């Protein structure tokens, strides 16, 4: 919707028009303050962290593994066409020759969920299937972050977000304590 609004404003003579294309979902995912009625139920963006390592298609897998491990993660996401999630790196993806390009070893088309999806039913489905992490993206496929099931469960159980995401850059709740 916002590209259309930006286009109209420009036509009306505004000289400096900026489009925050990721919008409110991205803002919520960063844990920034929201004005308005508080949501009645937790949604995925309440538990979405934006700090998962990312990679481009042509990077050598060894470089990405080094960066991912150094950041304390076991997996990374591959982005193309801007911020669109095109692949996931985990498990056996890492066992290739370090010089292998990411594009040949990534899992294609990872499952994604939207930031405004209700949190609790999704966490229950993930618990049923033994899924530990899900990728959160906009309807256009742009990466918002990831939701980790165990963290989301703690949030549902009422633990304050500051306690769940201690010292995490770009995690829900981080900005509220500033």
């Amino acid at each position: 919707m916002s590209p259309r609004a930006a286009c109209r404003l420009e036509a009306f003579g505004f000289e400096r028009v900026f489009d925050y294309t990721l919008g409110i979902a991205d803002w919520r995912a960063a844990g920034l303050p929201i004005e308005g009625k508080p949501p009645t139920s937790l949604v995925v963006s309440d538990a979405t962290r934006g700090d998962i390592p990312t990679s481009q298609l042509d990077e050598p897998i060894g470089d990405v593994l080094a960066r991912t491990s150094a950041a304390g993660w076991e997996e990374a996401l591959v982005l193309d066409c801007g911020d669109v999630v095109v692949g996931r790196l985990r498990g056996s993806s890492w066992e290739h020759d370090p010089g292998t390009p990411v594009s040949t070893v990534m899992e294609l088309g990872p499952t994604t969920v939207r930031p405004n999806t209700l949190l609790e039913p999704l966490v229950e489905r993930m618990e049923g299937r033994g899924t530990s992490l899900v990728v959160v993206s906009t309807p256009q496929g742009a990466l918002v972050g990831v939701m980790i099931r165990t963290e989301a469960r703690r949030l549902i159980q009422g633990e304050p977000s500051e306690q769940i995401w201690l010292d995490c850059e770009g995690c829900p709740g981080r900005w509220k304590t500033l």
Partner: protein
Amino acid sequence: MITNIDRSELLSLIDDGALVLDVLPQEEYESGHIPGAVNLPLRSLDTHAVASMAKGKPVVVY
């Protein structure tokens, strides 16, 4: 000129006093918006609605 921006650029623009417009329908705006954002749903975005806004000032839409 239209520039696509990310969250950090948005935060600097807010610091610089940019006008932030939420172009989503009113119900969505009311259920949560960026603090200080003004609701101007796309369907009511016409010349009349923007008449009082300074054309040279930065304006952010989302």
